[in-house]
């Protein structure tokens, strides 16, 4: 069974998959890692993003990634609205823990069932010229449907990292995680900063959704497989650390790719959980944790 060629291909496929996982996780890294909002509905928003990319692609023939960029403002507005409800209902009243989790859990189901009612449970896919092409370097196979999402995802990370570390707004977002009082003394409203940050986190779901539907056909309940993955990556990377998120996403991608290649794809979902539990048990701060 084991051959070096298979192993190298599994490694490359895992790294590409990891790039995509990074895009899926970045929203959680911001909302859970920085803002301490346990947004378990994030994967549902990613699926929503997939379906919007699907609609624009089928109706107008727009490339899924361009479609996702068009949809970013709408997702941003959705995120801002959700944060406003969350703030008024939970953070302000100081009961974020149990009720907040139940709130997002409810949103997860509402989104999923609405998608089922509108689109049904059939698998949907998009069309783009690059989807069935691939680069070949000797025996190494680089399918473009994996490569393009991975590259754009890395680009998105660089932009976000620059935004968070170089701009006033970005630094204010990082500061929210540390000391809200100090932020208020700097004449920046923590609520406004958190609303912007949460809106950005939901906006990333638009792109991640487009990547997902490029990589594989999508049906409404696919999102649930990603809940374990995104939180495993987020925790493994160290909460709130974007470079940590990329490293952890690549690690998980490679681990899953090897599992799928050598044990069979039906075992892959269990990998993330194993990693999550091991991280929580032995190094809860993650790789690049604070």
């Amino acid at each position: 069974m084991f051959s070096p060629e298979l192993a190298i291909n599994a490694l490359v496929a895992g790294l590409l998959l990891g790039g995509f996982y990074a895009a899926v996780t970045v929203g959680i890294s911001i909302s859970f890692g920085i803002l301490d909002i346990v947004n378990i509905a994030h994967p549902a928003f990613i699926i929503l993003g997939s379906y919007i990319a699907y609609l624009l692609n089928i109706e107008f023939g727009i490339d899924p990634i361009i479609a996702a960029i068009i949809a970013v403002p709408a997702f941003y507005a959705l995120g801002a609205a959700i944060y406003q409800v969350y703030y008024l209902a939970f953070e302000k009243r100081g009961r974020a823990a149990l009720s907040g989790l139940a709130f997002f859990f409810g949103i997860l189901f509402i989104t999923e069932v609405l998608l089922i009612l509108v689109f049904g449970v059939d698998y949907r896919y998009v069309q783009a010229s690059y989807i069935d092409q691939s680069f070949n370097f000797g025996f190494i196979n680089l399918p473009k449907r994996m490569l393009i999402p991975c590259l754009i995802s890395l680009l998105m990370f660089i932009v976000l990292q620059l935004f968070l570390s170089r701009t006033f707004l970005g630094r204010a977002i990082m500061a929210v995680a540390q000391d809200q009082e100090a932020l208020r003394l700097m004449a920046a409203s923590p609520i406004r900063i958190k609303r912007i940050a949460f809106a950005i986190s939901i906006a990333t779901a638009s792109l991640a959704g487009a990547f997902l539907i490029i990589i594989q056909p999508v049906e409404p309940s696919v999102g649930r497989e990603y809940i374990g993955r995104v939180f495993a990556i987020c925790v493994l990377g160290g909460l709130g650390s974007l470079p940590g998120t990329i490293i952890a996403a690549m690690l998980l991608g490679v681990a899953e790719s090897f599992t799928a290649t050598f044990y069979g794809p039906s075992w892959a979902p269990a990998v993330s959980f194993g990693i999550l539990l091991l991280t929580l048990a032995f190094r809860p701060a993650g790789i690049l944790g604070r």
Partner: protein
Amino acid sequence: MRSGAFFLIALAVGALIFGCARAINNDYVFFAGYTVLQFIVLATAWNILGGYTGYVNFGSAAFFALGAYSSVFFHKLYPMPIPVLIVFAAVISGLVGLGMGYLTLRLRGAFFAIATLALAVVLQTLIVNWNYVGGSRGAYVIRPSTVAFLGNYIQYLFLIMLVLAVVALTIARTIEHSSLGYGFATIRDDELAAEASGVPTLKLKLIATTLSGALMGMAGAPFPYYIGYLQPSSAFGLEYAVNSIAMPIIGGTASWAGPLIGAILLGTLQQYVTVTISSSVNVLIVGVLLVAFVVVAPNGIMGLFQSIARRLRHDRKPA
């Protein structure tokens, strides 16, 4: 009221319900009633951890399925009566609850919630890959059509679930009025202060997860007999995860009566919607109700009653 007295009263109410159901003598009443009773057990079990200690378990479906599949496993190994299978299911689910709790409960509350969410996915992966219990194809459990004394087998299953519901409610109420319950409440209100005052918080949380997991497993144990053909997708169904959270929160998490009220109301509503509209609308309604209650009435129906009662008392006072 002492716990013993509560148990006897609950048992008497249960006997009355069973008598009424027999008087109606329609199989559908038993089928639908079984589902509602099963939700009472699940909601009560969830509330022992979620309501009393404030730790959210999203993996109810996993514990439920664990119970169901432990029945399938032991049934294939050696056919045993259902009450014995329920005990096995309780032990297995309780141990899984303990293990999960031990790994994640030392950290912030959110990690436990996330780990339980992932647990459902992984257990489902394991079951799908495990051919002995049917794998992804599912497993048939052939149930006898009749049973001694009662006649129809569904009546026997109904009776078992009724007893489980009485047991679960008694446990929940006993905890509420014991030092264990006060310990749980300190964790919910301020874990740090509790720890500082010498409350053994980790030990109490582990007791809560084990108990809650065991009860959920018990609710799942008779399920293969009820459904006849057990598939991973039905055992790990969405409705168990969402309902066992929605029911206590909508009913009110502070006392044993909340999950009971929530389960009866939502359970009956869903039986009605499933028959008249469709089962995906069903999950939608529960999701919308859950979000609405969490935002507008976070103390649930019990909380609404209490605030109305309080207002009435204020009005009656002479100005």
